Structures are given as C-alpha cells and as structure tokens.
C-alpha cells in the first residue's frame, strides 16, 4: 500500500534494541556532565563521582524505569508515529497560521482565485466543448457532408442526398435535416427554432418521443400532411402541457401542421450535432418541401447519420467517398471537377467535433489565458511561501541542528502549505460554483450550453488536480530552499542580513510573475481592444424601437415561370462556363417576380401604417445585421463591367429598399439624395452606395454622386447601368467582427423582374422595418395580423427587434470580453500583492542594514527612494520581458481570433504604465516603512 521507500524514510529512529543502550548512554552522559561540573567547582574527582551518583539516585533503577517507559512509548509510537508526526506537522502548521492570520489569508486568497478561475474555465470547456450531447452512444453520431478542395464542409442537394442514402453501407440510420423557424398560431404565437427532418432522424439521435409518436416513414412521402414533434419545454409553453394537443392540427407559418409527439423532458437539441446553431423546439416532417429532385454541388440539407456497430468513422468515410466518386462519374457537370475546384466528394466527421470546431478557437484561447493565470498564481504563492519559510529559517536551523532530517523539514513545509491548499481549494471551488451560476446570466445566449455548466464529478476532479498541481508547484521551491539550512550562518546572524542568493530567488519570482502578468494583460488588452471595438461599434443606424418582420413569399403564387436561362439570359453571361455547365444552367427555369410581390409589399405597408403606435414602415429585402445571410453578395466592378463575374475580385452587397428606408432607420445621408417617388420602374436607374463602397470602388477620393455603375442582379442576365445619386453611412451587415462591406442600394421599384431558379428566392425575401413610438414588442401581434390581412398564407420567418438582433451579434465578444477583463484584473491584483509581499519582507529582513545606513547618515527619504527604485527596477524588467513575450506570442493569438486588431503601441504602453504604476503603488508602503526605520531600534533588535 505504501511506497517501498516510505517505511525506511519515516521509520522510528528508536529501534527496540537501541532503546536500552541509548538510555544507558544518556545516563552516562548525565553522570559525566555532573562530575565535570563538580570538578570544575573544585570538588576532587573521587568525591565528585560519588556525589554525582548520590544526586542521581541508582542509575540501574532509573535506567530500568526509563527503558520500561521508553518501551511503552515505543509500542505506542510504532503504530502512530508516522501518522502522529504528520498530525503534529499539521497541528504545528495551524498554530503558525494562528500567529500570522494575514499571511494565511493572503495565501488562501491567491490560491482560491487561481483554483476558482481554473475550475470555472475547466467546467465551461468541459461542458461546451468536450461533453457530448446526451444521446445514446453519442460517439456513433456523425455528420455527412459534401466536400471539395475549396469547400470542405458542404450542405447537400436533395438528388445527391438520395443517392448518398441509397449507396451508403455504413450507417444504421441516416437523415437529412434543414434548420428553419416556424411560428405556431396557437395561444401566444412564438417563433420556434425548428428542424425539418426525415423520419430516420429519431434513429440517428437515438431518442424518441415519450408522448405520442415519432415522425414515421410515411410522413416522409411527398405531399404527406406535415406532422411535428415538439420538445417537452415547448409543449408546456405553447400547449400548457395539454395531452389533447397531440393529434391536433395547428396553423403554422409553414402551413398547417399536426402535432404528433412530445420529446422526453430532459431532451434538448441545440443543433450542435449537425449544425452549430440555436436550440430547436420543433421537429417538422419533410425537410425537402417541393424540391426533391434538384442536384447542385452544394445544397440546403445537413445530413446526420448513426454508424453501424463495428464501423469506424474512417471506414464510413472511405465507403462514402466511393459513393461520391461514382456520382462524380455519373453527373460530371455538377459532381465532377470544375475549372477551379475538385470533384464533389463526401466526408464523414464526428458530429460533435464538427460542430464544436466552429466555436473551439476562442475557448482554446480561454484555456491558454487560464494556464497563464494559474502560472501567475503559482509563482505568487511560491513567492509568498518562500518569504514565509525564510522568515522561519532560524527555527528550521535549530531543528536541523537537532538532527531533523531534511525530509522532515520538507515535510513540515509541505504540511503547512498543504493546509493553505486545502482551504484554498474549498474556497476556490465554492467561488467557481458561484461563477458558473452567475456568469451565464451576465452574458445570456452567448455560448451554446453555457447554461448547462455545472460542477460535476469530472470538474471537481479537475479542481483537485489543479489544487494538487498548484500546491506542489508553489511549495516545492520554498520547501527545498527552506530545508537547505546553513547552520552556522542561520543561527548566528541569519536574521540580520539577507544573503544575496536569497534575495535573488525572491526577485526572480517577482520578475517572472510580473512578466507573465504583463504578457497576460497585454494579450488581454489586445483582445479587449478587439472585442470592445466589436461591442461598441456603431451599427450605423438607430436600432431603438424598431421591429423587423421577415417573411418569405410563397414562390408558387408570387412568381411565374417565363422560360429558361438559355433562352432569356445574356449570351456572354455563360461564356466562361464549360459545356456541361452551360447546358445545365441553360436549362434552368427563369421566373418573373411580378407585380403581385410589389403589391404585397405596398399593401402590407398600408395596413401596418394603420396600426396605432407605428410611426413608419420601411422595406428592405434583408434586415440589417441579420447575421450569416450572404446571398445578396454580388460581384461588381464599375470600370470593367465586361469582366466575367467569376473573375471579378471586388464584391458588393445588393439591397432593395423602399425610399423611406434610410429615414426610418436613421441611416445618415453623407452626400447627394435618398430615393424618391421619381425613382419608379420606368425612370432612369439610380443607386445609393455606402461609405465602404466609395472606399472600395472609388478609392475614397472621388465624389461618386453622378457616377455611373454597372452591376448584375441575377448573374445570368445583362448587367444594369445606374447612376449614383447618394452616399450613406456604413451599417453593420454580418456582424461586428466583419469589416464594413460595400453595399449598393437599389430602389425596390427598380428591382429586376427576371430571376433564375436558384436566385428566385432572393426577391421573395421581404423585411418590413417598423419604427414604433414606444416598446415595439407589444405590437407584435398587431403587426402579424396586419400582414396576414393582406395574405394569410405568408409564413413569418421572424419578428424581432433590431436591438435584439444587434445584441445577439455581439454576444460572443461580450462573453470573452467579460472573461478576459476578469483575468487581467485578477492577475494584476496578484502581481501587485506579490510585489508588496516581497518588498515588505525584504524591508523587514533588512531592518538591521537599514538601521546601519540611517546611523551612517542616510536620510529617511533616501532609504524610501532606494526601496521604491528597487520596486521600479523589478517592474521595468518584468514588463519588458512580458511585452517581449506577448509580442512573440502575438502571431499565434492573431491566428486564433478572427478580426484581431493590430498590435497597438498605445494600448501596450498603457498596459506597461498600469503595471509599473501598480508595482510602484505596491512598493509605496514598504518604502515608507523602510524610511521610518529608527536606527537605534533597528540596531538594538536581536
């Protein structure tokens, strides 16, 4: 049970045979010493020997008694010696702490801070990154994706998907899914995160409804009535937990749907397995809709699958790649290689890791920051413990002089620091429990599963590991230093002077700690700079009191097919494509998005304006900052309009807006004019551009008002030539971490009428931007009613306030901002405390020396200045090293964080200043104390 060396190292030095002879020797020594004393007093040797014996009593008798007592002791100690002396060490340590509670408190504080930070971050990393979704055999769940050289993780088109499914031999279940949002019009209408799924989905995740039934294969058939399974939470929320809701048909924004099942209460689906995204509450049948036959390189389906038992991911991957190769031969035009990309292949990846990969990088950074912080904590604790051990070197020297083995001294120091670790761990874990409870509330919705974070056994195990590491790392140096006692110097004059070697160690620790802190703070400052610029970036418009109602007009009623691309498109638009592509795209149907759509927009606008509380209603195809929607990106080049689209390098977003769009959203007009009633369908084409557009396409210098620009709307039709009539300020589009992109605003009335099959969804996407007088959310139902009074069958994609949308964009930066600020602050505090502790100790140790200096004429001011200068020297050395380290690590940092701002000398200078000032502040009290040393007192002490 015990390691082999244990008994030897900790064995009882009083073996049974040794007892008797030891006591004999002790008594002999006693008699000898007595005789010597007596002789020295002038007693003659013979009498002295007799007198010594007389005073001692019978040596024989006392020896017998002493040996008997020693045996009793020995018997007792044999059992408890090891344990007992440990207990003694522990008890002794406690006694020391009672004597210096401030010291103990300080140590416990820094240790618990480190453990709290480590534990909380570990808990978050564990939950968010490492813990699989709570499905049976989660490691068998994989994502099956299209893959080309350029696009490694592609969604799939229906025709390709059905071929994949037919050809696969590796999965026990495989299901196509499509993420969407559906509003059920019952009770309080609520937009539900929705996943349209094939029936196999439930076999893939391995969880089935506990109430009602799952989606069945017959629900997968084309035109089958739509059914849905809801989560337990949504069932409680929307249907008040009514069992009769099962089987009931409910009107939804995607048409009528019958609720057939309710998932178990503990089931939640964060869309993580197949797709990084928000929580899903509704599982709708039929992910394909009307389109089950289109075959394109990419698509709109995310595919999940469950590996058959005994099949590895690699085997499945290889098998699916064979399927892909067959399809590439069969459909070379689409699945085969193109001029600038490889053939469409398939990759099979662990679903959890695939999703987590998207969010892993910032967390990795968080881990690095935590490691740095833990290192600072270690050095801090080591520094403090070292000064403490050195303070007591006299006591330790005495013990060493008495023959205490070195391991015994090390053990004592470890026992003392062990107490600190135990208490520090307890406090730290408590603090971490508090943190993981509080933090998700501070930054809601920023990180998936953050609300699931809890201190479970795994995390507690991690915390123990942290504290053990912290303990060993921080106590090792003090223990070794403290046990290496130089007897004569420690006993004679140890308390008076500090030897250079000792000061050197303390200083190295402080400098190392300052350097680490500096690197941490500098890195954090850079990230904080980056993130705060993201959080604070002005959206370019006023999001207050504004609702965005986003709808998709049903294609069957709002478009009509008028021909094909081959017949209607510009001949040169397809010229750069290979023959197979030309043929396929030439056959693509073309639709007219006609007067009905424009009419719908106009009439909804009229209805909305009738609603009391609504001030103005504007229209755009997409809401501002509606994340991730890049469909509007179209190539543009004013100078070389003849260049094929694929070869153009500069791109711009294209947005169709109503004339009052800029006024309603308060987008500032910088030059020229906004759209007016004169910019109708028959009038000369006009556009408005944003500031970024001017920078990108006009080099920023020229006044673009009046300039002509050429651009495509649908890429297969002739480009449009229009005149720039105004320039507006930049607004956020994709997210704060993206630079402002060039945007071209086109009057809605002048939107192109013809769209090919793949682009026709664009003009059907419509967003009403509704500025209200007061709190906009109370008008949500009025807004929906007004819209449905025009067309009751138009599904609402979302109805949200712009402020919500803006907040969501900055949620992740805000989370990391919060975290990094905390880390930087803690490590700064630690550095200050560490420096303070060391200098206080230093001054205390050198009281004698300072006294001599004062006695020799040094003024109080010069002594104070000396200590301050020492603090400053430490600070400058540490800061210089730290900044150098931070600079060196900068590249790694930049590779981890998208959109990291450049290394700002001002920010780093600021960091350096803060650190130096902090250290000087921490040196102030010790310096004052040194200045206040009374030379007489100092010299008299000892």
């Amino acid at each position, binding site marked *: 049970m015990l390691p082999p060396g244990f008994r030897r190292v900790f064995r009882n030095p009083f073996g049974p045979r040794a007892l008797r002879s*030891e*006591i004999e*020797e*002790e*008594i002999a*020594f*006693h008699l*000898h*010493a*007595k005789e*010597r*004393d007596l002789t020295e007093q002038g007693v003659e040797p013979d009498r002295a020997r007799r007198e010594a014996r007389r*005073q*001692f*009593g*019978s*040596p024989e*008798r*006392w*020896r017998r*008694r*002493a040996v*008997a*007592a*020693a045996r*009793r*002791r020995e018997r*007792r*100690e044999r059992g408890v010696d090891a344990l*007992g002396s440990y207990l*003694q060490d522990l*008890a*002794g340590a406690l*006694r020391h702490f009672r004597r210096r509670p401030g010291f103990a408190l300080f140590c416990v504080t820094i240790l618990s801070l480190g453990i709290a930070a480590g534990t909380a971050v570990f808990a978050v990393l564990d939950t968010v990154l490492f813990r699989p979704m709570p499905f049976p055999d989660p490691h068998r769940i994989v994502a099956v994706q299209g893959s080309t050289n350029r696009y490694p993780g592609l969604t799939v088109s229906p025709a390709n998907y059905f071929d994949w499914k037919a050809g696969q031999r590796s999965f026990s279940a495989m299901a196509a899914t499509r993420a969407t949002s559906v509003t059920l019009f019952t009770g309080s209408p609520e937009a539900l995160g929705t996943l349209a799924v094939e029936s196999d989905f439930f076999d893939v995740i391995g969880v089935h409804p506990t109430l009602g039934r799952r989606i069945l294969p017959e629900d997968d058939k084309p035109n089958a009535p739509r059914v849905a399974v809801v989560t337990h939470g949504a069932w409680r929320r929307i249907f008040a937990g009514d069992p009769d809701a099962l089987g009931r048909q409910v009107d939804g924004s995607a048409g009528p749907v019958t609720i057939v099942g309710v998932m178990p209460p503990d089931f939640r689906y964060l869309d993580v397995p197949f797709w990084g995204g928000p929580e899903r509450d509704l599982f709708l049948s039929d992910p394909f809709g009307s389109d089950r036959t289109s075959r394109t390189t990419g698509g709109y389906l995310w595919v999940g699958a469950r590996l058959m038992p005994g099949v590895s991911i690699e085997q499945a991957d290889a098998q699916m790649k064979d399927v892909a190769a067959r399809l590439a031969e069969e459909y070379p035009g689409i699945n085969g290689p193109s001029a600038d990309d490889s053939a469409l292949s398939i990759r099979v990846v662990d679903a959890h890791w695939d999703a987590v990969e998207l969010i892993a990088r910032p967390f990795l950074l968080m881990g690095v920051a935590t490691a740095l912080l833990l290192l600072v904590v270690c050095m801090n604790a080591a520094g403090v413990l070292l000064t403490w051990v050195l303070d007591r070197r006299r006591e330790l020297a*005495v*013990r060493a*002089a*008495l*023959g*205490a083995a070195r391991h015994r001294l090390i053990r004592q120091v470890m026992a003392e620091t062990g107490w600190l670790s135990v208490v520090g761990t307890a406090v730290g874990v408590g603090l971490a429990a508090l943190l993981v409870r509080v933090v998700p509330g501070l930054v809601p919705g920023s990180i998936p599963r953050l609300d699931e974070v809890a201190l479970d056994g795994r995390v507690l195990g991690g915390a123990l590991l942290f504290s053990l590491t912290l303990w060993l790392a921080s106590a090792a140096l003090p223990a070794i230093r403290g046990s290496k006692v130089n007897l004569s110097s420690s006993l004679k004059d140890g308390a008076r002077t500090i030897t250079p070697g000792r000061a050197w160690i303390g200083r190295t620790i402080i400098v190392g700690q300052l350097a680490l802190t500096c690197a941490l703070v500098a890195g954090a400052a850079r990230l904080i700079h980056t993130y705060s610029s993201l959080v604070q970036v002005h959206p370019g418009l006023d999001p207050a009191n504004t609702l965005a109602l986003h709808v998709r007009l049903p294609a069957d009623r709002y478009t009509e097919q008028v021909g094909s691309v081959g017949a209607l498109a510009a001949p040169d638009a397809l010229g750069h494509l290979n023959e197979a592509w030309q043929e396929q795209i030439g056959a693509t149907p073309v639709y007219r998005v006609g007067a009905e759509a424009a009419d719908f927009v106009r009439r909804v606008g009229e209805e909305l304006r009738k609603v009391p509380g609504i001030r103005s209603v504007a229209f755009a195809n997409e809401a501002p900052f509606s994340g991730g929607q890049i469909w509007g990106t179209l190539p543009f080049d004013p100078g070389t309009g003849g260049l094929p689209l694929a070869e153009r390098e500069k791109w711009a977003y294209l947005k169709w807006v109503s004339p009052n769009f800029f006024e309603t959203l308060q987008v500032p007009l910088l030059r020229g004019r906004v759209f007016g009633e004169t910019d109708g369908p028959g009038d000369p084409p006009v556009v408005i551009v944003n500031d970024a557009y001017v920078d990108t396409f006009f080099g920023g210098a020229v006044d673009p008002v009046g300039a002509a620009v050429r651009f495509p709307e649908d890429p297969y039709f002739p480009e449009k030539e229009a005149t720039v009539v105004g320039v507006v300020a930049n607004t956020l589009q994709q997210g704060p971490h993206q630079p402002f992109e060039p945007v071209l605003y086109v009057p809605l009335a002048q939107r192109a009428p013809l769209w090919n099959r793949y682009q026709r969804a664009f003009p059907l996407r419509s967003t009403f931007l509704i500025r209200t007088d007061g709190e906009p959310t109370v008008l949500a139902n009025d807004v929906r009613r007004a819209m449905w009074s025009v067309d009751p069958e138009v599904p609402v994609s979302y109805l949200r306030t712009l402020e919500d949308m803006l907040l969501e964009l900055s949620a992740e930066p805000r989370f990391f901002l919060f975290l990094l600020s905390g880390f930087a602050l803690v490590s700064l505090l630690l550095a200050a405390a560490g420096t303070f502790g060391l200098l206080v100790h230093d001054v205390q140790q050198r009281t004698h020396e300072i006294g001599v200096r004062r006695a020799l004429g040094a003024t109080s001011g010069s002594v104070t200045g000396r200590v301050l200068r020492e603090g400053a020297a430490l600070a400058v050395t540490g800061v210089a090293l730290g900044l150098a380290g931070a600079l060196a690590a900068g590249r790694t940092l930049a590779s981890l964080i998208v959109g990291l701002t450049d290394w700002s000398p001002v920010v780093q200078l600021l960091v350096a200043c803060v650190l130096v000032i902090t250290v000087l502040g921490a040196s102030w009290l010790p310096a004052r104390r040194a200045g206040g040393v009374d030379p007489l007192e100092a010299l008299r002490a000892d």
Partner: protein
Amino acid sequence: MSDSSLQLVRGTLDLLVLKALSWGPRHGYAVSQWIKGVTEGALLVEEGSLYPALQRIQRKGWIRSRWGVSDTGRRARFYELTPVGEERLAREVRVWQRYTAAVERAVSAPEWEVE
C-alpha cells in the same frame, strides 16, 4: 509518598520539563539542573527520576528528542517541545496559575471567609 501526591508531583514535573524546554532544546542533564536550580531540589530529589519522566512526556507527544552534540563535544540526547507541547505548556501554565492562586487565596483566607 501517597498516590495522589505522586500524581501531583508528576504533573508538576511535566510542567517544569516543558517549561525548561520552552527556551529551546536542551539535553536531559541541562533540564535536571534547571529544575533543581529553580525548585531548590524540592521536586527532583533524585535526578535519575527525570529520565523515565522524559520518556513518559515524550510518549504524550509533548516533547521529542534527537541526538546531537553537547557543548563539551560529547554525544547527547536533546529534547525539544513539539507544537502540541507548546500548546500544552501554555495551557498548563494558565491552569497552574489559577490553581495556585486559588490555593493561595484559600490557605491565606481569614477564618470568617471560609464558612
């Protein structure tokens, strides 16, 4: 010596040993000389009785011993207080002071107070 007075002497001897070691480690001879000096030989009639006592006190964990070298250069066993012993000493001293104060008050009290 009756049993109770033996107990009394033992307890007192323990206290004095702890006290003797409170200024630092000493060997048995030094302890005996200190006790004899301060008690004028009243407590330690035979110096040898110290050695069973030292073993007994050691068994209680209040002191511990190590072999070292005396100022005369001979090997000697040094005794020192353990943390528990320090604690014990502080407590014993308080108890002793209260005890002796109480006894002192009692034995020197005038008659009318003792009813």
